[in-house]
Each structure stands twice: as C-alpha cells, then as structure tokens.
C-alpha cells in the first residue's frame, strides 16, 4: 500500500474559527506575561517605575530567607491540599459515577455547581462563624467536653479554605472522568476474579488517569495561587507567596519585585503542569 503524503493547505475556514482564541491568548496571556517579565527588571524611584534592565529585583528577592520560607510553605500547602482533596473527592466521585442512578447523579452535579454561584470570599468568611473558638464546631464539641480548638489563623484554617475552593470542582472533574469508563471492562475484571479494591487500582484509576491528574493539577494550581484562604482563614501566619506579592506592592509600590515573585510562581506552575500532563498521557509500559 502506498502512503501519499498529504500536502497541508491553507484553510481559511479553520483559521477563522481558531483566530479569536489565538488573538485572545496573545492579547491577554502572552502580552501581559512578556510585560511581567520585562517589568521584573524595572526599578522603582519615587513610587514610579523606571524602565531599565537591572537584575537588582531578582537578586534582592532570591536572596531573602522570607521568600524561600514562603515558597516552601506555599508549595507544601498546595501539595497537601492536592493530596487531601483528591483522597476526599475520589470516594464521592466513585459513588456518583458507578453507584447512583442517573437522576441522582444529575442532581448531585447541580449541587456541586451551586457553590460557585456565590463569591469565594463570602464562602470563606462564612467559615469564621463555624471555625471560631466560640463557633459552631467548638460549641458542638463542648457538649462532649472537648475543645475549644483553635482552627482559625492556623494552617488548618487555610486548608479548610482550600477545600472550599477546590473540592466541588475536583468531584465534578473526577465524576466526569470516571463516568467515561466502559462499565463492561469493570464487569470483565470482576468476572476474571478481580476483587473490588484491585479493580479500583488496576482498572478504574488507570483508565481515568488523565481526568484524575488534570483534576489534581487544577487543585494544585488554585491552592498554590490562592490569596483569600491563607489571608483570612490562615491569618497570614506564615505568609504565602500571594500574600508576599501583596506586601511587596504595598510597601513602596515595588511592582517589579512583586513581578519576580509572580514569575517564580508561574514557573513552578508551568513545570508542575507539564510534568503532570506528561505523566497523565504517558502510555503504560507493555
């Protein structure tokens, strides 16, 4: 059989459909990103940015201990949030994908979307009433003689905020991914003597790998860049990189130094995203 190499021709129709997203990305992602990189080399004099090429901002930020401790804390918390959220979401997603009727699944999906109707900031503030030392949780615990426990202004408070942000989204993504699995394959695994737990690890998770990894990636990205939970529920103690950006801009309008922090964050996210996607699409060794 002869293979004819197809000649790629200019396709105006296809380009017309692709053009808006290309223009959008160039204008609102690539453009600002390039400006951000350029800005990290500018200097601030008398509260005004001076366009120049100077490595001073990079030297200053990267040589500060507080930057690295913030970096490690932010990275650690985002990783922990990803693991915790993935573990919490999976049983729920599994049940929604395989154990409930279509009707129940549809309603559950609807209720998972409902939290996004309200502002994340409002949802975060509502935790004050629940987590405060005089709040709902501690009041209930007091009936059994436990507590009060300090939950606000701790890493635990931050983690609760992260879960508020990512858990509904993660359950949605995982459920959609698990729902795509051909149930006949699960049946086949059972018929061949594969137990329930082994089916989950040998059949379901490998088949839903892409969706599960993408869900976890979203979780990491959102937690890594979140400002609201670490500030309002974590009490900024210790501070995360997004809080550091705020502090840097507040004092002396040091937008260029804030740009350095932002670029470090984005680089981290790019590396994590590429590694995750590569892992998700890696074919299993035969």
């Amino acid at each position, binding site marked *: 059989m002869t293979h004819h190499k197809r000649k790629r021709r200019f396709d105006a129709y296809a380009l017309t459909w692709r053009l808006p997203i290309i223009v959008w990305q160039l204008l609102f992602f690539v453009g600002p990103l390039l400006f951000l990189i350029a800005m990290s080399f500018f200097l601030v004099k008398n*509260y005004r940015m001076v366009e120049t090429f100077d490595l001073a901002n990079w030297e200053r930020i990267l040589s500060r*201990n507080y930057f690295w401790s913030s970096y490690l804390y932010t990275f650690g918390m985002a990783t922990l949030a990803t693991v915790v959220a993935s573990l919490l979401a999976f049983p729920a997603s599994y049940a929604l994908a395989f154990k409930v009727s279509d009707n129940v699944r549809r309603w559950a999906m609807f209720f998972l979307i409902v939290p996004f109707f309200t502002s994340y900031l409002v949802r975060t503030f509502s935790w*004050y009433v629940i987590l405060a030392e*005089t709040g709902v949780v501690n009041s209930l615990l007091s009936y059994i003689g436990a507590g009060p426990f*300090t939950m606000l*202004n701790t890493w635990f408070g931050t983690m609760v905020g992260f879960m508020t942000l990512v858990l509904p989204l993660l359950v949605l993504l995982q459920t959609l991914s698990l729902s795509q699995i051909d149930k006949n394959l699960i049946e086949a695994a059972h018929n061949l003597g594969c137990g329930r737990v082994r089916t989950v690890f040998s059949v379901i998770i490998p088949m839903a790998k892409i969706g599960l990894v993408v869900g976890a990636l979203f979780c990491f990205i959102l937690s890594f860049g979140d400002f609201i939970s670490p500030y309002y529920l974590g*009490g900024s103690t210790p*501070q995360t990189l997004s809080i550091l950006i705020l502090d840097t801009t507040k004092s*002396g309008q*040091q937008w260029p130094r804030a740009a350095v922090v932002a670029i470090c964050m984005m680089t981290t996210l790019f590396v994590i995203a590429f590694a995750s996607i590569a892992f998700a699409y890696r074919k299993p060794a035969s």
Partner: protein
Amino acid sequence: MKELKKDTVKSTTRRDLLKYTAAAVVTAPFIKPARAAPTEINMLAWYGHGESDVVGAYEEANNVKFNAKYYAGGDNMLGLVSQSPPGTYDLILSDAEFVSQLNAAGYIEEMDAADYNFDDMLHDDFKQFPGHWKDGKLFSVMVRFGHLGVSYNTNAMSAEEAMSYKSFWKPELKGKVGHFDWHLPNLGMMSLLNGNGANLWDIDDAGWEAIQETTMSLRPQAGGFFDYGGTFNSLKNGEMQAMCGIGDWITGVLEKDGAPVASVVPNEGGIQFTESYSIGKGSSKVAEVKKFIQHMLSPEGQLRSTEMAAYPAFCVTAGGRELLNKTNPKEAQRTGQVAGAVNDPIRLINEGRIHYRDIPVQQGLEDWNDFWSDYKNA
C-alpha cells in the same frame, strides 16, 4: 377612497380645563425644580471618607457629587497619585507623614492659609503640622486624628495591664495577639517599648537591631496578621484578645456595637495618625474643593468626621468638639473629647505621651518591610 376627517382639531372644553387644573394641583408637590447636573469631585481617600454618612448632606446642599477612590496605606496612595495624570484627583486625603512626599513630587496645589480657620484648632501643633507647610506656604490641612496604643479584649486584660506594651507578652495571650498588617505602627510601638520615646522613628543601627529583637520575641504570641476586615472580625469573635498596631479607630466601632474591647495609650506612649486634606495638582475644581475642606473644618463637618461609620477619629477644632459634646455627649465621653478627661487626646499630646506617626529616618521603608516579612515568616 378614505374620507378625510374634518374635525381633527378638538377645542378645549370647560370639562377639560377643570381636569388639567386638578391634575396640575395634585402633581405639583412631586415636580422638582430643574437643577444643574452636580459638580463631580474626584476624591482619593481612606475608606469611609466619601460615604454618605460623611458627605451625603454636603452633596445634597451644594449640588456636588464625590467620586471616591479608596486606598489602604500611604504607599498605596502615593502609587495611585504618581501613576495618574495631573488633575485626576481633585481632593486627596493623606496621612500626614506622606504629605511632604506628595508636595516634593509636585502632586498637590498650594493652599491659601487665610481660607481656613486655624484659630479654632485645638492644639498649636495642628496649625503648623510637620510637612504641611513648606517655606511658609501651606499645602495640606489637618482634618482629623486618632491615637494608636494597646487594643484589647476587656475580658482578657484589665485597663491597668493594658497600660504597657509588655502586656502583649502575657503568657495567657499566647497565639492571641493579632497584628494590623502594616509594619509602620507595629514597629513604631516596639520602638516605644524599647524606650525610644520621641525619637521612635529616628533610630540608629543598634536601636534598629534592638527593635527587631524585641519584635521577634513577640512572634510566639502572634496569632495572625490582618487587614481592616480581618482585624475587625478577629476582635469581634474573640479569636484575638489583644491587637498591636491599632487603636480606637477599630475598637471604637466595635465598642459602640457592645463588644468588650477597648484601646488605651500606654505609659510608653502612643502613636498619632493624622489625616489631612490637600488639593490635587491640576484640579479644575479648586473652588469647590476649598469649600468642602472649609466645611470639614466647620463644627458640622467635624461632627460628621468624628462620628464616621467606617472608623472614628478625634475633632481637630474646638467648634467640632463643642458640637460633639452637645449632640453626642456619650461619644464625647467615650473618646475623651471632654475638657479635663484623663484620656483627652489633647491632654495626652500636651503630656508628651503622643508621638506623631512618621516614616523611618535612618532606615528605608523597604528595610522595615523586609523585616516585617521576616517576622511574619518566623
């Protein structure tokens, strides 16, 4: 062909006349006289200054409208002004310590001292406030002030205990001391605790080292770092039992609401925040802005300022204080704005216990900010 109607113009009958007259009588009270569009004044200020409780009546009476842009912190304010073309802001409310920078950069207009009633000021310092005058020319007028010290939950600490910044180190307050998330007032208080008194901002390297050491020793007590909303909430729900970096401008709002919180100026001294109005460079509404500043210095303006819903402050004029005592004696008592009161803010200034907030003299603001970041991460 359609026949043309002959009688198309209807003459007004006596019944119609009566009907229209009745309608005019009934609707007359609802018809407002035509009024020119209000003059818009662009204001740059801390939150609250452009809200209706402060400017609403003035807007109504003078047919003006304030477009308020709010900032948080002097640095933020300077950044906004410097990045905007001249004439963007007609009226700028600034913390006093930043007025000289606004002036040096040419962001504010010279004012005519004769336009403002300085004779009514409660303290001589207010007439010649540092940075507001340069070479005998006026650039800013002080309109309100407040004092920062130890803010605390009255169930956790007595007023006597709160009379020293050392109270923040009480073992019972471990993890319960909050910080208003701005290095300047917090580190200023640590400087006062270290005995720097009137030189709290002008400290040498050894003094700066000592302040850092003192501040770091407070870290185990620190429960969090908060903005205005967070400070408010954490004091209200009792998460924080003491707060460093604030004063009655936050606890006053809560106290009026019945929360068990208070603020005192401790023995080591307190810090004064001072808010002043300037006219933005290139403003085309100088006359309107001048009139508004005059209003804010009048007894009525001072009353609205001191009772501002967002955050209370003290009157700067005798007329304002007098009106406050007449119309709201409870608030006058609560804030000590009564002649002879032990916590009378003017008396505290005269006793040398109050130090005007400034920026570090021998270090840069960024050095203080760097240390503040270190402290938060410790």
